[in-house]
């Protein structure tokens, strides 16, 4: 697979033989501050020597990925309802999880992320819920962060992200999928931004008040409210996540957004033609805005095969890099066990999902790194893909004057 012709911007031959040991921060060769910066000469997005901006120095090598759910209380009530219904259909007996049990689950997930060198990842806090469920989910999120204070940091802004990196804890970035709780009352974006909504998807997979979802019957573009919502999210410095939006709606959202947008977990249609995936036109539009596309490992988005492989993940990544550019690829991971099938026509299976063999959780990130190396991604490129690009968008939108 390394025979593929690739002209990576900063390919360094030696990178392929760099140590692959997996462990604490730095195992991925891109988490700054632990003395390995000079090992590889790749320029990357790392701050130049003499750079006075310590925040930038900390952040530029951060590994920032997502979204990956961490526990059911934070997954949201509607998602729970869908999960329980799906499990009932599959004949799985109902489980009642205690808070302690859920916290233990969060801790396991966070430790897995940390062991894999992940500095921060997006956590689904809202999956299509309305109030009062949104506030309940936020409460649980913040309670979990407080309970696990020695291991996690809530990332609501750049300081939070820097704190996660500097204190060697895992940053949890609350991720809102859908904005039902706002709808036409656009002033509410400010309130939700203040309580943690740093990244929001205006719609998810179905029709919502701002536009059509990727699984909808129609592809009608933004609604009257949707156009205004994009501007309102710009104003409040909320990162707009267009994953799951229909093709026309997301193109229109990019046409009207003044900030870079992200597709947190979407793949390339040219590699696998699926409604969730992005056309080359979308990839280029995203790049033009300075945004990023996070590759998803969700099997239905990777390949028509029932059991895709890590190679499929890399194929999507390569296509995104070749089409949008190295500065616009990221890792969506999307290691979810939440149900996504709501209507019979939805082009997704029901859980449990068959993620690629050897690529189904944080613990497998080392394999991805090996894959990146074998496909010619140098250390700087890897740093971009693993987090540098995402951090650039967060800095630009959340605002520290960079970008």
């Amino acid at each position: 697979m390394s025979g593929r012709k690739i002209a990576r911007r900063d390919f360094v031959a030696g990178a392929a033989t760099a140590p692959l040991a997996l462990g604490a921060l730095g195992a991925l060769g891109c988490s700054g501050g632990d003395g390995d910066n000079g090992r590889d000469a790749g320029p990357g997005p790392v701050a130049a020597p003499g750079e006075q901006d310590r925040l930038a120095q900390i952040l530029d090598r951060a590994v920032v990925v997502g979204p990956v759910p961490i526990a059911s209380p934070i997954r949201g009530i509607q998602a729970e309802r869908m999960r329980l219904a799906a499990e009932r259909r599959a004949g799985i007996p109902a489980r009642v999880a205690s808070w302690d049990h859920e916290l233990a689950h969060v801790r396991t997930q966070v430790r897995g992320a940390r062991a894999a060198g992940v500095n921060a990842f997006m956590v689904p806090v809202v999956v299509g819920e309305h109030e009062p469920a949104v506030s309940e989910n936020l409460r649980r999120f913040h309670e979990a962060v407080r309970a696990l204070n020695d291991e996690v940091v809530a990332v609501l802004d750049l300081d939070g992200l820097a704190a996660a990196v500097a204190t060697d804890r895992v940053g949890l970035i609350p991720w809102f999928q859908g904005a039902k709780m706002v709808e036409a009352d656009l002033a509410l974006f400010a309130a939700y931004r203040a309580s943690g909504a740093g990244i929001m998807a205006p719609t998810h997979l179905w029709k919502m008040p701002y536009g059509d979802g990727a699984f909808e019957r129609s592809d009608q573009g933004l609604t009257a409210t949707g156009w205004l919502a994009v501007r309102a999210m710009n104003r409040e410095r909320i990162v707009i996540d267009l994953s799951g939006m229909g093709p026309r709606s997301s193109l229109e959202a990019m046409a009207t957004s003044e900030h870079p947008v992200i597709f947190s977990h979407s793949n390339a249609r040219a590699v696998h033609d699926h409604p969730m995936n992005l056309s080359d036109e979308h990839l280029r539009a995203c790049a033009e805005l300075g945004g990023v596309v996070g590759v998803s490992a969700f099997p239905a988005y990777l390949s028509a095969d029932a059991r895709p492989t890590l190679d499929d993940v890399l194929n999507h990544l390569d296509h995104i890099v070749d089409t949008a550019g190295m500065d616009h690829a990221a890792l969506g991971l999307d290691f979810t066990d939440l149900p996504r099938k709501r209507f019979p026509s939805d082009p997704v299976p029901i859980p449990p999902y068959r993620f690629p063999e050897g690529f189904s959780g944080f613990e497998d990130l080392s394999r991805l790194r090996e894959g990146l190396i074998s496909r010619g991604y140098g250390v700087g490129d890897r740093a971009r893909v693993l987090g540098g690009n995402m951090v650039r968008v967060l800095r630009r939108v959340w605002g520290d004057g960079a970008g």
Partner: protein
Amino acid sequence: MSHPFDPALLAEARALQDDILVVNGLDASLLNEEVVRTLKAGGVHMNMSTLPDLSLSSPFHQFMLDHADDLTPVTTVAGIRAARAAGKVAVGYCWQWVDVDEDLSQLAGYHRIGLRSSGLVYNVGNYIGSGCVDPNPGPLSHYGIQVVEALQDLRIVVDIGGHCSEATSYDVLQVAEGPVVCSHTNPLALRDNPRAMSDGLMRAIADTGGVIGIAAFNFFVVAEGQATLEDFLRQFDHMIDVVGVEHVGMGLDQIIGRNDRGPVNPVTLPPEAYPQRYEDWIYVEGLDDFTGVPLITAGLIERGYAPDDIEKIMGANWLRVWEEVWGE
């Protein structure tokens, strides 16, 4: 020639209303004293009242109890006739969009406390479909199809309201079985406003056996100034020309006693469709409240409509559709 404001003609109109059953197919006033007073004064026997906050805890349940001498909540056409016989005004409960947080199991409960008619989308796209001011109108969503089916399973009238886009409205007609209504709109042919309805869609609604209510909202009738009764009656003439007397009714859409003030939300109520301050939300001359309803009857008499046709337009068409959908 007489005029609808002519006292003799008005007396004739009022007398005719006493012989028939007068129905307003959509009211946006909520429930208040002013509504009760003018319903009685205007000779209206049944009012379909928009109650967006319909729930067990809604204060209007107590309001209805407090006004039991004047008002009766109804869920059947037999109930409407019984209220009329008892000298009370019948009140039905409706929504202009379905807001159940995508949990359609709640609809059975709302039906239980009186919901009998519902719109789907209010001006701007929602989870169900697209609205009349959306730039790129489209069909029902997957969920929207389920909403229409769930309403019909409960025998709740499906109302495309006039607030749905035409694309969504046509799609509703594909999905729904039996009569579909549009509770309050105005002919696009007479006034170009995003809220108005094409002749083609009106015919398609009539083809289902449904009925279209005409709204008295000034800005839907004229672009500038005060709409006259003559302007309003011309809307009846046009719609009757297009769909016939079997499919036209009143859906006056007044906001009696609400006293809203200040700027509207321009997102859901954009300037191309609505005046931007509530102070400018006025109605056709004489129709700020129900006391003007006899003016409509008088106008129809004056225009030469036969008493049987006036009976249909002023109420019987609504009763026919409701009886078919609600059953007895």
